């Protein structure tokens, strides 16, 4: 491009087109992960674990080694992979249903055990892939296909706050909640995912990034409205922020 100065180029290892609905944040998050891996030269040594959820085909979209996990078990699979190759960058990419409902134990135990892997959990408050059922993260009163009268705490309890939950464990090196509803937050998300990967490469322990995301399709909103809903409603219940950061204290012993 001649004398043009690059401001932003989509990373080569981000390999579309993807199957996501228009405006779904999954694509943004993928792209950002690809940016980091490419910038840091980690794409050669990375192994991603794709979930069962809308991101089940994530392996088609970032040019690294990938494993497709049974629903919820990504962190257990990642534990096996990490101990097979302790110096590789191993991360799981999961939905909220995947990481926080059926996989609640496996995700939590990665933190309890301090497994040196990273989880990126995409919280869109529903089960996107299967058609918009209630997730543990569904807001109280929110209507989904399995909470047709709105989530009722009497039967379904209260929204689960994973970033806070994961932060409580000693094995956790980093637990952060970010979002992607505007460019600033996308950059912030990128900063924290990068940090998570860095901590992992330094052997600091388990790192966890929760991304407050959208599901325009199942929320029955257009993508811009959905992004606004995240900004105005979701982050009231899921406040963005750093819930744990061991900083430079802890090195692999």
């Amino acid at each position, binding site marked *: 491009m001649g004398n043009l100065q690059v401001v932003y180029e989509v990373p080569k290892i981000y390999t579309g087109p993807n*199957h996501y*609905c228009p405006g779904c944040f999954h694509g943004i998050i993928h792209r950002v992960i690809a940016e980091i891996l490419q910038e840091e030269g980690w794409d050669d040594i990375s192994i991603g674990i794709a979930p069962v959820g*809308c991101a089940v085909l994530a392996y088609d979209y970032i040019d690294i080694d990938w494993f497709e996990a049974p629903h919820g078990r990504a962190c257990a699979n990642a534990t096996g992979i990490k101990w097979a190759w302790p110096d590789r960058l191993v991360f799981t990419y999961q939905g909220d249903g995947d990481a926080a409902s059926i996989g609640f134990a496996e995700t939590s135990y990665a933190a309890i055990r301090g497994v040196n892997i990273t989880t990126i959990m995409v919280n869109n408050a529903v089960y996107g*892939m299967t058609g918009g059922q209630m997730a543990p993260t569904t807001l109280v009163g929110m209507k989904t296909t399995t909470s047709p009268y709105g989530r009722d705490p009497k039967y379904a309890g209260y929204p689960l706050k994973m970033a806070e939950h994961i932060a409580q464990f000693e094995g956790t090196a980093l637990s952060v909640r970010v979002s992607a509803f505007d460019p600033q937050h996308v950059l912030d998300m990128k900063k924290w995912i990068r940090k998570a990967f860095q901590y992992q490469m330094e052997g600091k322990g388990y790192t966890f990034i929760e991304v407050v995301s959208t599901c325009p*399709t199942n929320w029955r909103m257009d993508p811009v409205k959905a992004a606004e809903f995240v900004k105005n409603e979701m982050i009231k219940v899921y406040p963005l922020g750093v819930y744990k950061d061991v900083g430079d204290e802890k090195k692999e012993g």
Partner: protein
Amino acid sequence: MLKDVIFAGFGGQGVMVAGQILSKAAMEKGYYTTWLPSYGPEQRGGTANCTVMISDEPIASPLTHEPTYCVIFNNPSFQKFEPMARKGGIFIYNTSMITEKPKRDDLTYIGIAATELAEEMGSVKATNMILLGALTYFLQDVVSLDDVIAAMREKLGKKKPELADLNEQALRKGFELAKEQAK
């Protein structure tokens, strides 16, 4: 007697509902009938279709691999179902969205600019009803236009009564156009 119909198009074009209304109309007339959608994530973005079977005896298979009646909403579906259609069958398609041209000489093609017509009538949402109306013309030995209108009103009328009148108009329009072309 066994009528096998396929409705196919993009998700969101009303493909599924058109099939359900036909099936319901047939049921009300006392026929055996099934409606079977393609399902799963491929619905998202990609093409969706449904199969309707109508018979005077219990229906063994809800699937057809050689549909006699095809109602086609978009190009990919045209490409997929034209070769499958049964010899002598009826092939109704929406020329507003479809650039493909008929290739067989053993089918009756009914091309209708349904989307444009629907827009003219007040809402693109009526596209599917125009095409269903056209189909109804060919199924009169089973369901009359009035049967289909009644089924449509029962299915949609409660939730969106304002739409029902438009839809009735659309069904009638499609029926008329088919009648003309079929001559």
